[in-house]
């Protein structure tokens, strides 16, 4: 799980062009949106693309988004639970 979260932090920085941030600046449980990293709605779509590109996971139910993308930890938990289920 720690390795997955470390990878995710690097991938988020790369996918969202957060060049002022380093992986260690992102807390495992830090909110990604609003008061946390301050990501916006386009970033949310890019996170969906990231799941698809890097982990071959399609977020089929958009309503799951806010829960899945709450923090790096919730993203990692979602990936763990869904890896291998969708191609």
């Amino acid at each position, binding site marked *: 799980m720690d390795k997955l979260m470390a990878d995710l932090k690097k991938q988020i920085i790369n996918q*969202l*062009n*957060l*060049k*002022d941030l380093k992986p260690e600046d992102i807390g495992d449980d830090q909110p990604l949106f609003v008061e946390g990293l301050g990501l916006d709605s*386009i*970033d949310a*779509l*890019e996170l969906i*693309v990231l799941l*698809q*590109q890097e982990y071959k996971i399609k977020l089929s139910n958009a309503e799951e988004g806010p829960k899945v993308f709450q923090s790096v930890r919730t993203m990692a938990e979602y990936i763990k639970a869904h890896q291998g289920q969708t191609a």
Partner: protein
Amino acid sequence: MPGDQYITAYCIIENNLVTKNGKTIFENRNAGLNEFLESAYHHAAISYPKFYKMDNLSKLGFLSAEYLLRDSFQREKYTESEVSVILSNASSSLDTDLKYQNSIREIPSPALFVYTLPNIVIGEICIRNHFKGENAFFVFKLFDATFIAGYVNDLFRNQGLRACVCGWVELLEENYQAVLYLVEKEPSAWSEIFSAENINKIYPKNNG
């Protein structure tokens, strides 16, 4: 025809060089476009993380406006709706359109898609500076000073405009040129009457 407005500052970015009112502000001669834009951003000492997410056309327009307005624009003199941004170019958003087209082959990029309109660069400048006046983006083969002078002067005369950032922000692949003019009702220490003739005097002739 001379109007009642003045060009109170101008900024040109081309050939890896940033000049303002004819003076060199920054240069990075050997850099590629991406490296040049990022170095010009760092030189400006701005903290605006959104810059990194912009497409190259928006980065170019954003930086031109930053350097143009810095030390020249007294924003406290104006309300947000009294300031406009009127821009033009030849290639519209084609640079990003092509990149987006490439991304469609795999998974389309939402972050690229939002920049597939040329007027997004105006939005970036307005968001940064809280400008809420009239704005428009025109596409011409070549920079048309007569049109820009006529359009902007009309906004001043008939729409209550009191300041305007206008000009040319062109970018396609590694080729780019930004020429922005700050136009105001009051003359500054350095100023020229805002007319097609004076716009053309400033506009670099070798790239026209």
